[in-house]
């Protein structure tokens, strides 16, 4: 079966005022459909850079990234944006909700971008928020929500179009223990519905829930540990509703 996400010889060099910083130095990584992979490593080892390259948010200096076998590192910005709309969800450590939009507007945005009708998008967003436990905070502005609530809304936004893969950059890193546990539970539930999860984390509890842990050090994969057998692949949540 074709891996859902694949990186070959991925390298990234940053130019910081004349000095070159090698963030990634040739990473090979394969993520199977329905798999939950945690990426761990010390600060500055290239975890977030790897995630950004896999999501098409940044361009590699060398190497290639394939999504469902299709090479995406050569796509234009517009093509990458259209691809992310439907197939990639992203959750950040600092939530990154749009402050000018209400919680429900943040969640319905990806649905509107793929052409869903306004009413339909609002209904789906409302249902999703209810499912994630923030149904009563639909009209609130992001600033009016707690950290845990903001991350649930961000998760709802990432899951709105039932993407093939959900990427998370320290999604529990800025939450208290209870909220972190809840968010992890929601992520696992998404995986149980068949979505692929790739999370960058420092949190051992998050890593313990993964099927596989990939360790990075100095821009290279230093270790890979299989924790659980991969679950059977199911259709992602909400896929049948997709336009």
């Amino acid at each position, binding site marked *: 079966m074709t891996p859902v996400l694949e990186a070959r010889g991925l390298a990234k060099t940053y130019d910081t005022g004349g000095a070159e910083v090698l963030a990634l130095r040739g990473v090979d990584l394969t993520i199977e459909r329905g798999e939950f992979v945690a990426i761990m490593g010390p600060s500055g080892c290239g975890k977030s*850079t790897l995630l*950004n390259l896999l*999501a098409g*948010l*940044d*361009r590699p200096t060398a190497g290639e990234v394939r999504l469902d076998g299709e090479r995406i590192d050569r796509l234009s*910005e*517009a093509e990458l*944006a*259209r691809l*992310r*709309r*439907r197939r990639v969800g*992203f959750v*950040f450590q600092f939530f*990154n*909700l*749009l*402050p*000018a*939009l*209400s919680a429900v*507007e943040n969640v319905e*945005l*990806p649905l*509107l*971008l*793929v052409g869903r009708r*306004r009413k339909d998008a609002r209904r789906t967003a409302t249902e999703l928020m209810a499912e994630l436990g923030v149904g009563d905070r639909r009209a609130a*502005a*992001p*600033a009016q929500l707690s950290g845990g609530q903001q991350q649930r809304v961000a998760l709802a*936004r990432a899951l709105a179009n039932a993407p093939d893969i959900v990427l998370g950059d320290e999604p529990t890193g800025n939450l208290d223990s209870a909220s972190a546990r809840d968010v992890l539970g929601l992520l696992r539930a998404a995986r149980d519905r068949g979505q692929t999860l790739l999370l960058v984390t420092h949190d051992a509890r998050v890593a313990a829930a993964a099927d596989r842990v990939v360790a990075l050090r100095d821009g290279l994969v230093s270790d890979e540990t299989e924790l659980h057998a991969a679950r059977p692949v199911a259709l992602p949540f909400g896929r049948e509703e997709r336009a």
Partner: protein
Amino acid sequence: MTTTLVKLAFAGIRSRLLASGLTILLASAAAATIVLALEVGQTARDPWQRTFDAANGAHVLTTVPSEADARSIASLPGVAQRDEPVPSALARVASGGGAERLRLAGLRSPARVNAPVRTEGAAPPAQGVVLERSFADALGLRVGSELRLAAPGGRIALPIVGTAVSPAQARYPRSNPGLAWVPRRTLERVEPDRSNWAWTEAIRLTTAAAAPAFAARAGASFPPGAGDVQTWENQRAEALRDSQPIAIILTTYTIVLLIVVFAVVAILVGARASAQYREIGLLKAVGLTPRQVTVVFALEAAALGVISVMIGFAAGALLAPRLAQPSAETLLSSPTTAANPWHLLVAGIPVLLVLLVSARSATRRSTRFSVLQAIQSGAPSPAPRSRLARAIAGAPLPIPLALGLKDLLASRQRALRLGGAIAVTGAAVVFALSMKASLDAQPVGEVSDVSEELPVLVYTLDAVLLVITTTTLVAIALLSVRERIRDYGILKTVGLTPREIGSGLVGAHTAVALVAALLSIPIGIVLFRAVFAIAGGSSEDLVIAPWWALTLVPIGTLLLVAAATALPGRLATRIPAADALRYE
């Protein structure tokens, strides 16, 4: 502590050179127009006084129907010097491309009081005719050519032997009929019927200050409406009245500019406060009170204001003589720079006040948040949503436009101020278009009493406003991009294409500008009607710009805004998503 606050204020100026430069440009333009409005009249006062002195001007000038009446007024107490009464009669000019009316004053000998002051050729009473200079200029009559008059006995041709000015005669055609001096015999030839003559008695008093009282006594000596009495102050006011419409226009534009200054400076200071959200939090964390933070911004505004007022004062004082130039046609010499130091104060107070109030209003919110919130979040949370923002949320707009509008309206005050600046600029353009329509509507060949400088002044001020508003638009769009870089990263992550993000920014600014431009049309018409009425224009001469010209205002605004925001829009799309997400 004061030194620290001053250092912080100057650091703020240095770190935002574009915003500081724009503030100085705007505020100095406002200060310059205030100074111009104050100086224009004064710059011609000295030349008028020199003309009055050269003419041995009359403290009181009476024009009555008979020579006997004139002589009786001259016998009133208080007279220091007088001249023989001078007869005059109306004549019709049959040359110079029109049929203008002209008052011919018949002199037997050179006048001793209120004497015409020669500017070219021979001095009155020379054989031939000496024309008042502004009349000769308006009709294009030159010394050496002929003046043909329509007399009861047929046409009379008189050689033009000179031009002169008089402190008692305002510029033609505002002062109509024009004035010319001829020998007494010529007057008798042009108008033999002496019952059509009027007699002017020019009187100098022992003290100039006694002129109003003497004029009142002189006025009481003949039936109401039978004659005319003018003091030297009346003569001066009438001679310098050409600068009145210019002063009204300048006052109007001063108000317009002060509104734009208030709007733009508040936006710029607010943007700085927003950009320095975390820094302000840190300043408060190390012990600065909210009042001291406000003082930093106020000091910055005051420093920019002082520079602006100095530049504005210099520019205004230098330009004023040029705008007072129309009066020069009736004066011996051109208006000169008056540069009254009091005007520096009068111009400085409103400009500094506007800058300080806008700084206060912009920083009020920034100093209210908690220190922890500022340090942690790095950016202020948007204000609660307005009804307008909620309406936009429900409107079936394209997603990029809806997002752009929500972003723009998240800073309600900024959107309102931007709209206000565009509306008053548009109104100024409507004003200029209507003024042009009114001037164009005058019959062909009719000499206009509007000085040439007036339309040029209005177009120049409009150009200044347009440059300022366009620069403001670019600056605000750049500030929006800078503030929203992180949001653009999020939008790209969610799936918006670069083109959609750029079109959202441009579209939102264009939509706000379109509403403002549409509002500017009625505002501009009301402004034009008001200024026209204040300047004493006849309602019959008032013409509003045609509809097709008015449609240029919203169309031009749309093009201008699209052009001004295109570059910031492009910048917004070019930043890689990963970099944008890291941006603080």
